[in-house]
């Protein structure tokens, strides 16, 4: 066997690495430290999660009855769900994933920072003004055309708020592109000695795939939004059929970005999931290469499926090719699901909160995936297009998918970011409430949609009231569950148990330094273990013991250490 690789070059220093103290003021000002930027992204995203969630609660309150009663006009209702969608996508999931990427990618690569630290900070600071613009858009005239902003409703009929919303998304698009360029360069150029492409942690693979999508797709959104804004304020008529334009042009350009955007939102989560499942099941990721390659396959095929969002508007002859590609993309997604099941099979599963959300993801995402294949079948899609069936599907992949992985990521990496553990008991409450609230919010929507309830309506037929009541009450439970997590974060930041460097005994490099890491991340150049998921390998035990020895263990040891370090591992 090869000699044991130690996480710290030479391993000569004795254990006294001190974790730096975090100060709130550091996070309120311009900083080029990727860790501070990462936390800034996450904090802003969490704030907007609350904003978007509040809008969702208002929507569900309105939908308790078949009539308009909570809000005054249908336009106000339309504004609620339009801004809800935009906030959740562009100000919650995407920045949150970018926050994880910023925090983790340099650490997982053993690097001191991102390739372009200043650009990184600039990309973040575009977000607060964009957020203000988007929230402000609700006050100056309703953006009432949904997050999809289809003209001519958006261009000829919606208020000035629509223009502000479009400007806001434009800024966020620029921020995404700048961030993505940074990720690509960082991952390509800053891998340490000993980390080839096939030793790259899967979160980095996923971030790379995501960044490639962002760089290739987001310019289309920018182009489309430019035309939309010109139509609104400069009297052009790109999308106005009355003056020679074509409303469907927008749909093609928009979905050419926005379908890949679905993968922008889910791929980083899938990367986090691979880390969480392997670590907490104490087993290598099953089929590592296939998981990595399938991310790239999804990124590639993801560019060929956009018009399946247009199965009721596209020229009929053009629909079939998009059905074929949409069906094909189910295959790499299936590979991932089965690989994750293979990962936990035969493991030593530890039911930490992070792991529960990881397992919850598998359980919920498969529902969204099956619904997705059904939606790819044109004849069925025609029936349920623009109904609650689609609302259910998209929330299963974006909430049951992305948000569950974000939650898993929060429980998994909070100790690294703050140096303290989140409370596991509260974490389990959070999981239970989220899982139940989520399932009963979104699964019954399938029935409502198939039976005839369209989406984006403030009025519905009285026969749908019972199912909507179930949905709304579950949604309120889901809303409450969020505050359990926020409370957990709030108290654990100050009073959580000390985490130590590597509470989960994980092998990727971010754990081979103090929690939180010093401003240069590592004291020496760290040496990665030859396999980022080499759990069950005897060498890995020695490597992990060395981290414990070097940095010490925390007050809480969620993953018990083998009694004496040279002892052979369990089996």
């Amino acid at each position, binding site marked *: 066997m090869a000699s044991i690789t130690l996480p710290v070059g030479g391993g000569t220093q004795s254990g006294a690495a001190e974790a730096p103290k975090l100060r709130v003021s550091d996070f309120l000002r311009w900083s080029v430290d990727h860790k501070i930027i990462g936390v800034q992204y996450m904090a802003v995203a969490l704030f907007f999660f609350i904003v978007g969630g509040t809008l969702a609660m208002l929507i569900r309150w309105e939908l308790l009855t078949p009539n308009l009663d909570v809000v005054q006009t249908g336009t106000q209702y339309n504004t609620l769900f339009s801004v809800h969608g935009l906030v959740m996508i562009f100000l919650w999931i995407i920045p949150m994933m970018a926050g994880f990427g910023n925090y983790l990618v340099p650490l997982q690569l053993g690097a001191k920072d991102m390739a372009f630290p200043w650009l990184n900070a600039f990309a973040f600071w575009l977000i607060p003004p964009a957020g203000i613009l988007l929230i402000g858009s609700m006050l100056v005239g309703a953006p009432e055309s949904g997050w999809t902003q*289809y003209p001519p409703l958006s261009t000829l009929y919606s208020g000035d708020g629509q223009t502000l919303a479009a400007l806001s998304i434009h800024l966020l698009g620029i921020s995404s592109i700048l961030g993505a360029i940074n990720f690509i360069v960082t991952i390509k150029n800053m891998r340490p000695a000993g980390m080839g492409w096939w030793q790259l942690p899967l979160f980095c693979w996923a971030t790379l795939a995501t960044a490639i999508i962002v760089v290739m797709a987001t310019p289309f959104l920018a182009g489309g939004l430019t035309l939309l804004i010109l139509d609104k304020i400069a009297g052009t008529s790109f999308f106005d059929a009355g003056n020679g334009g074509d*409303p469907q042009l927008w749909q093609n350009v928009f979905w050419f970005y926005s379908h890949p955007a679905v993968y922008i939102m889910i791929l980083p989560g899938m990367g986090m999931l691979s880390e969480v499942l392997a670590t907490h099941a104490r*087993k290598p990721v099953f089929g590592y290469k296939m998981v990595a390659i399938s991310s790239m396959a999804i990124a590639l095929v993801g560019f060929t499926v956009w018009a399946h969002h247009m199965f009721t508007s596209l020229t009929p002859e053009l629909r079939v090719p998009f059905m074929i590609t949409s069906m094909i993309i189910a295959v790499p997604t299936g590979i991932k699901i089965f690989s994750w099941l*293979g990962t936990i099979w035969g493991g*030593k599963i530890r039911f930490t909160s992070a792991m529960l959300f990881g397992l919850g993801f598998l359980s919920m995402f498969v529902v969204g995936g099956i619904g997705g294949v059904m939606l790819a079948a044109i004849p069925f899609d025609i029936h349920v297009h623009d109904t609650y069936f689609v609302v259910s599907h998209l929330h299963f992949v974006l909430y049951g998918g992305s948000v569950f992985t974000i939650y898993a990521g929060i429980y998994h990496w909070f100790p690294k970011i703050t140096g303290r553990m989140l409370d596991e008991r509260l974490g389990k409450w959070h999981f239970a409430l989220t899982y139940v609230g989520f399932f009963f919010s979104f699964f019954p929507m399938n029935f409502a949609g198939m039976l005839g309830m369209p989406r*984006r309506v403030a009025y519905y037929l009285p026969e749908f009231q019972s199912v909507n009541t179930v949905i709304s009450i579950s949604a309120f439970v889901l809303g409450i569950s969020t505050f359990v997590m926020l409370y957990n974060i709030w108290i654990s930041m100050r009073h959580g148990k000390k985490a130590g460097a590597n509470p989960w005994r994980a092998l990727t490099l971010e754990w081979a330094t103090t929690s939180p890491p010093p401003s240069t991340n590592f004291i020496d150049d760290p040496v990665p273990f030859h396999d980022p998921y080499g759990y069950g390998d005897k060498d890995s035990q020695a490597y992990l013991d060395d981290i414990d020895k070097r940095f010490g263990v925390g007050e809480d040891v969620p993953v018990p250490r083998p009694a004496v370090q040279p002892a052979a591992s369990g089996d």
Partner: protein
Amino acid sequence: MASTTPSKPSSGGLQTTTIIAVVVVGILLIVGGIILGQATPLLFPQQASAEAAQVDNLFHIMLVIGGAIFLLVQGLLVFSMWRFRARKGETGDGEPIHGNTTLEIVWTAIPAVIVFVLTILSWQVFNSLQAPKPGEASVVVAGARFNWAFTYNVPLSILGYEVDETLLPPDVKDDLADDGTVSITSATLYSYVNQPVALAMDARDVIHAFWVPAFRVKQDLIPGRTTTVRFTPTVADTYPSGIQCAELCGANHGIMRADIVVAENEAEYNKLLTPILESRLFPPADPVVRGRAILESNVYPCYTCHVLSDLSSANWVGNVGPALDGVADRAATSRANATSQTAAEYLYTSIHEPGAYLVPGYGNLMPQLGVPECDVWAMVAYLATQSTSGSAPFEVVQPDVCIPQVSGPPGSEPPPAGEATAEAAAETEVVPAEATAEATAEGS
């Protein structure tokens, strides 16, 4: 494929127990999928078209397969969570299994085959839905915020009696001279059992989507192009709010609905259309009555934005546009002054060319509705009576071409010009209109 994952990935040949486990689990999954598939009829509304049966069958197949995959994944998940949980005091890691090429090929190939089969099946169903059917009836659909209108071209022969064509209103004569049919418009979609229908659809303002859940068909209406949707109803029934707009179109998108009436056969269908045709052939002589009847029929979407107490029974409760109570007084005074038109001209322009003069405080939201000339003048005559005094403060002169020549069907029927037609129309027309009103009245 599930249970091959586990036991002895390292062993050379598959053990008998593993094979038995795979077969048993496979059978259980198929049975489970079939049981879940039984739920299909509960998940859909009434199956009322030839298309519905095809779509439901396709879904049934997908539900069986999807159900089996759902059970497989959840089953593996729960089993693993129980079987591979870390016991108290356990410190070790799991087995360092990095993969299994055979297994990975299997779980790539099986989903690939499944989606291939589903693609072929879907393609076949889709082709059949799209294919033009022999003997299709054609109906023209106009979608405008927030109303549906259906225009039928019918021959005079559906009346069942002779009509003296020379006495028909001039615009009807033009229509007849074109292709031997008269176009009539209704806010309700009529059809009959086993008659294939092709709808040619136009959007007046924004994108709408024509959706009939009971028929499982949906198609967007896109400004600037005409789109087509086909269906063949199979169940004679009245479908209140059977049509629902499915593409976000603005404030009242949720109540952009319309009724469908599917008759038993062609004769019944003709009977349903007859009163609408008669009201076109023999319109009330009084333009005020005529105008009120047009507005009350809701073939134009005026009611979705304007409020008018006189027509509240026809659901004129919109709150987007200017209220029309007392509009005659305003037209005669402030609006006539502001636009330097006569009151009648101002009302005419406001309907015919909505963007020309905007009432202060209101945006340019009203679309060009393509209302025929004589309908506009009849509406103007009626709106001129909407004053506080109750009588028209100004005179509306009807163009010659719009003055109907009093006529009527021969035989026992009294001349339908006037009340007889209105009543006949009321019997068929108003019933579904009330159904809509009920559904939406609760909303307001």
